[in-house]
C-alpha cells in the first residue's frame, strides 16, 4: 500500500515537473472522452425522443384500417374500401381475450365556428374508449360518455390547437360552437399532445360521439350506416401485441366471410413497427458517432504512449538509480503505469466535464434533447483508465527491464 502511495506521489511529481507536456498529453484524452460523452448524450437524446413520440401515439396501440378496394383488377390504395364496421369493433372487444378495448373511428374535415372566429379541423367520431387507447387525457371539463354515444348528443371535446384558434383566452367549456351549421356544446378540452413522429399536430382535432358525427357532420359513407374509417385496438399489454393482432385478424376474416385463399380486406398496423425502424436508425447513428469518438480516445492513448516513452528515456538515469537502491521490476513498472493512468484518468475527468458542458450547449443552441447517462460517464472513466494501462504498459515495461548498469551510465 505504501509502495503504491509512494508510486502515486512519484508519478504526480513527475507530471507536475512537466506541466505543459502533461496537459498537452491529457488534452488528447480530454477531447476523446468529451467527444464520446457528448455524442452518446446527443444519440440517446434522439433515441429517447423517438421513444417519447411512440408513447405519445398511445401504448399497445394496434390500428385496423380497411383494405384496398379492388374493382375489375384495379387495386386502389389501402383504406379506400368500406369493410369495417362498428359491430366489428364491438366484437373485437367482446371476443378477443388479448384485446382490452377497441374504438371505431370515423373522421372527416369540417369548418368550425365560434362567434366570429372559424377554424378548419378534423372531426373524429368515436367512443370514449378512444381516449384510453390513445393515452389522451381531458385537461378541462370532461370527455363524452357512452350515453352521449347512445343518444347521439351534440357534445364536443376540443384539441388545444382548436381551442387556441377559436377561443384564445376564453374558457371554452359550456360554450356553443357550430360545426357544419350544427350547434355543439364544448364539454372538454384535451391535454396538449404535441407533434406526432410524422410531424402532424395531434392537437388539431375535435372528438365527438361516433353516432353524432355520422348523423350531423360526416355522414354515413355507405348505405351501411355501421361503416367506420378505422378501428383502434389496445392490446392487454405490450408483449401481447402480436397475439392481439392475430386474434383480430382471425375474427375479422371470419366476420367478413373470407375464404382461406382470399386476401384480407383490411390491414392491421402496429405503431411500434413503424417507429422501431426509426429508433433503430437513431441508435445506429449514435453508435457510429460514439465509434468515431472512441477513435479519438485511441489517438489520445497513443499520445500518452509517446510521452511516456520520452519520459522513460529522459529518466533513464533515475530508473538506474532506483534499481541500484533496490527497486524491483514491479516497482518501476508500477511507477510508470501509475503515471500513465494518472494522466489518462485526469484527462478523463476533465473530459467528462467538457463533454457534459458541450452537450448542454448543444441542447440549448440546437434545441436537441441530450441525455447524459451514468453509464456513459462510467464507461468514459473506465475506458480512459484502460487507455492509460494499455498505452502505458509498453513504456513502463521498457523502463522496468532496463539494465541497471546501462541505465546508470546513460547520458
Amino acid at each position, binding site marked *: 500500500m505504501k509502495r503504491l502511495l509512494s508510486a502515486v506521489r512519484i508519478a504526480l511529481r513527475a507530471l507536475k515537473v512537466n506541466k505543459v507536456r502533461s496537459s498537452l498529453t491529457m488534452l488528447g484524452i480530454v477531447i476523446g472522452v468529451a467527444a464520446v460523452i457528448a455524442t452518446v448524450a446527443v444519440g440517446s437524446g434522439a433515441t429517447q425522443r423517438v421513444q417519447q413520440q411512440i408513447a405519445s401515439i398511445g401504448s399497445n396501440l394496434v390500428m385496423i384500417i380497411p383494405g384496398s378496394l379492388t374493382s375489375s383488377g384495379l387495386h386502389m390504395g389501402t383504406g379506400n374500401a368500406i369493410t369495417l364496421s362498428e359491430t366489428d369493433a364491438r366484437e373485437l372487444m367482446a371476443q378477443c381475450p388479448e384485446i382490452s378495448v377497441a374504438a371505431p373511428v370515423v373522421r372527416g374535415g369540417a369548418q368550425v365556428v365560434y362567434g366570429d372566429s372559424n377554424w378548419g379541423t378534423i372531426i373524429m367520431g368515436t367512443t370514449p374508449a378512444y381516449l384510453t387507447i390513445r393515452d389522451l387525457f381531458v385537461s378541462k371539463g370532461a370527455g363524452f360518455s357512452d350515453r352521449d354515444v347512445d343518444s347521439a348528443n351534440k357534445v364536443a371535446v376540443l384539441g388545444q390547437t382548436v381551442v387556441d384558434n377559436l377561443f384564445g383566452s376564453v374558457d371554452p367549456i359550456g360554450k356553443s360552437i357550430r360545426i357544419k351549421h350544427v350547434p355543439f356544446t364544448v364539454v372538454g378540452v384535451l391535454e396538449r399532445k404535441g407533434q406526432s413522429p410524422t410531424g402532424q399536430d395531434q392537437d388539431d382535432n375535435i372528438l365527438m360521439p361516433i353516432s353524432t358525427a355520422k348523423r350531423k357532420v360526416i355522414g354515413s359513407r355507405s348505405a351501411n350506416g355501421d361503416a367506420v374509417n378505422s378501428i383502434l385496438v389496445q392490446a392487454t399489454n405490450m408483449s401481447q401485441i402480436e397475439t392481439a393482432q392475430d386474434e383480430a385478424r382471425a375474427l375479422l376474416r371470419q366476420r367478413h366471410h373470407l375464404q382461406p385463399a382470399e386476401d384480407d380486406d383490411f390491414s392491421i398496423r402496429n405503431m411500434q413497427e413503424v417507429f422501431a425502424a426509426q429508433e433503430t436508425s437513431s441508435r445506429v447513428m449514435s453508435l457510429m458517432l460514439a465509434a468515431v469518438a472512441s477513435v479519438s480516445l485511441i489517438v489520445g492513448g497513443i499520445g500518452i504512449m509517446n510521452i511516456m516513452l520520452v519520459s522513460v528515456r529522459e529518466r533513464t538515469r533515475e530508473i538506474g538509480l532506483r534499481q541500484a537502491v*533496490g527497486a524491483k521490476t514491479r516497482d518501476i513498472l508500477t511507477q510508470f503505469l501509475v503515471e500513465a493512468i494518472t494522466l489518462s484518468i485526469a484527462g478523463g475527468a476533465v473530459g467528462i466535464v467538457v463533454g457534459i458542458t458541450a452537450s448542454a450547449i448543444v441542447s440549448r443552441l440546437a434545441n436537441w434533447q441530450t441525455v447524459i447517462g451514468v453509464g456513459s460517464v462510467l464507461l468514459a472513466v473506465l475506458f480512459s483508465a484502460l487507455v492509460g494501462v494499455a498505452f502505458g504498459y509498453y513504456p513502463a515495461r521498457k523502463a522496468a527491464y532496463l539494465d541497471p548498469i546501462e541505465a546508470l551510465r546513460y547520458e
Partner: protein
Amino acid sequence: MPSLIDVQHLGKSYNLGETTVHALRDVSLQIERGSFVAVMGPSGSGKSTFVNLLGCLDRPTSGRYLLDGFPVEDLDRDQLAEIRNRKVGFIFQNFSLLARTSALENVELPLLYADHDVPDAEERARNALASVGLAGRELSQPSQLSGGQQQRVAIARALVNNPEILLADEPTGQLDSRTSDEIMKIFQELNRVRGITIILITHSDEIAAYANHIIRFRDGQVVSNEPVVHPAYAGAQMRFVPSAVKVLQ
C-alpha cells in the same frame, strides 16, 4: 566465518557481434568484513565491471561470487535488487540524486523499496543525514546544496538501510581537494567506527592512500593486491591496520 566477499575465477564478457570483449578474466580474491579497499586501474581495466559485479548490479558470465557465504551469481533481477537493497549502498561520482526532491526524500528512497514497510523511515533518514553532518538540511533540494553536501546526501542514502558494503565509484571525482578530504574522512569514520566495508574506485593515489588495501586492475585482471602499510588519516595519527584482503594465489 566466511569472508564477506569471496570471488572465484570471476569472469565477465560482452558479446559485441563478432568480437567478444573480456571485461574481466578469472579474478579470484577475498575481501574481509571491515576492509577499506581502493580499486585502481586505467580506464577499461575492468575495475568498474568488478565493482558492479560486487554490487549485484550485474551477473558474471563465469566463476563464483559468494556474498557473505551466499552464492549470488545465479539470482534473477528481482533477487539481485533485494540484495542491493539490503546489503549494498552505492555512491556515484555524479551523486545521482533525484532532482526537485528534498534531501530527506532522497535518503528515504531505498526504504521505499524495502521488502517490508519501514514505519520509521523518516526518522531513519533524518538520522542518516545527521550522521553525515547534514542535520537541518533535510528539506533542501539538490540544486540548493554544494557538491560536497550532495555527495554527503548520497552517502546518507547509501547508509540508510544499514548496508554491509559501501560501493563508491569515484566519489570525489567531481569535488575539489578540500571537499574530497571531507568526504574521505566520512568514509574512513564509517569504516573504522561502524565497521562498514568500503570498496572505492579511484584514479587518484591521494584518495587511495586513505584505504587500507589497494587492488590494481589491468586488462580485466588483478595485477596487484596489496595492503597499505600506513593509510592516510585525516587529522589524526597514522596507524598500522593489518590487511584484511588476501590474494588467493
